[in-house]
């Protein structure tokens, strides 16, 4: 059943479908970003995918179209899934990275596209209200791009200085590795001996 969906897409759009695969039963079609809106409309009307489960971005820093927009679609009536991807943006992500908005097909795409814009800086053309969703408006950059330094914070309130506080603010002690979860956080030499 599932292969038929990809067949339908291929017969309808021909060369605009760049590649397809059905690994582990997940039907995936990589499509031409210029045809994004058309393909999605086809999925909504002909394939009856009435539910947009998720829409997000992926950053592959060493691929040439660097960013990927991924949409997961589901048909409640026909009970089939399809995943549609489009690859956009050059290596340096110069200028605007744009793709069509699908918010007029599925209303839920409104917030999903806002999140994708917030995290990856992908502009969705025709989106009714493309603002940041999770980060604050003062935030500069797009944190899920691989070239954003993960630890770089942009505080909204000025931090207190150590003189004001009268104690070291970058404390790790006695918050040692045994407490809570030890992964992820930097562990400094000698930290384990405390507590």
């Amino acid at each position, binding site marked *: 059943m599932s292969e038929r969906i990809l067949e339908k897409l291929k017969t309808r759009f021909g060369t605009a479908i760049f590649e397809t695969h059905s690994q582990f039963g997940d039907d995936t079609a990589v499509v031409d970003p210029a045809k994004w809106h058309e393909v999605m409309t086809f999925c909504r009307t002909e394939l009856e995918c009435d539910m947009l489960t998720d829409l997000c971005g992926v950053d592959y820093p060493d691929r040439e179209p660097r960013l990927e927009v991924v949409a997961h679609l589901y048909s409640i009536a026909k009970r089939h899934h399809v995943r549609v991807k489009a690859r956009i943006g050059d290596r340096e992500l110069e200028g605007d990275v744009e793709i069509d908005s699908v918010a007029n097909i599925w209303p839920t795409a409104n917030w999903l596209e806002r999140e994708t814009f917030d995290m990856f800086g992908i502009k969705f053309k025709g989106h009714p209200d493309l603002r940041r969703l999770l980060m604050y408006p003062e935030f500069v950059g797009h944190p899920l791009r691989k070239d954003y330094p*993960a630890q770089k*914070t942009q505080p909204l309130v000025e931090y207190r200085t150590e003189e004001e506080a009268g104690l070291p*603010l970058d404390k790790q002690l006695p*918050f040692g590795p045994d407490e*809570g*979860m030890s992964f*992820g*956080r*930097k562990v400094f030499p000698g930290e*384990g001996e405390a507590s």
Partner: protein
Amino acid sequence: MGEVTRQVTLEGSQTGFATTRLDALLGWARKYSLFQYPFVTACCGMEFMALASPRFDMARFGAEAPRFSPRQADLLWVVGTISQRQAPVLRRIYEQMMEPKWVLAFGTCASSGGFYDNYTTVAGIDKIIPTDVYVPGCPPRPEAVIDGLLLLQDKIATGDRTPGIVKPREDPASIGNVNGLVQLQKKKAAKGDRP
């Protein structure tokens, strides 16, 4: 009616008066009537509920009445992760509280950012507001929080505003173990050794 012939002299505690310093009296009164404002943002809130419920019963320490207006509270519980976006709100809440006021950092996230070492989390609320007591743990056990509350009461009674950190209680299973880790293998019983 006979005349009073015997002169009675009362001494010390028999006079019916107690002399004390005003600040000590105030400290005594304050430490048993903490009105708390719970600023609950994340998973630590679950442990906060356990603490406030009858099994651990914070009311025993005179801290049972949460106030949902910062103007009526004098103890700010920061329970959970504080994101950069929330930082101005937390600062505002703190500024709205009346003097004298105290702040308790509940959990590793509030104390030091925990394992969230990234662009979105404030690594410790003391970067924004002065903090009196830190309770490490992810989440801390209610016993640890009660330790923190008692530590805070001590500090209030003595007028001590230096920050204090709750020491983890010794895990009985780890006594004698340098790394503080629980050893799972059974100890070999020596002959004639009582278990």
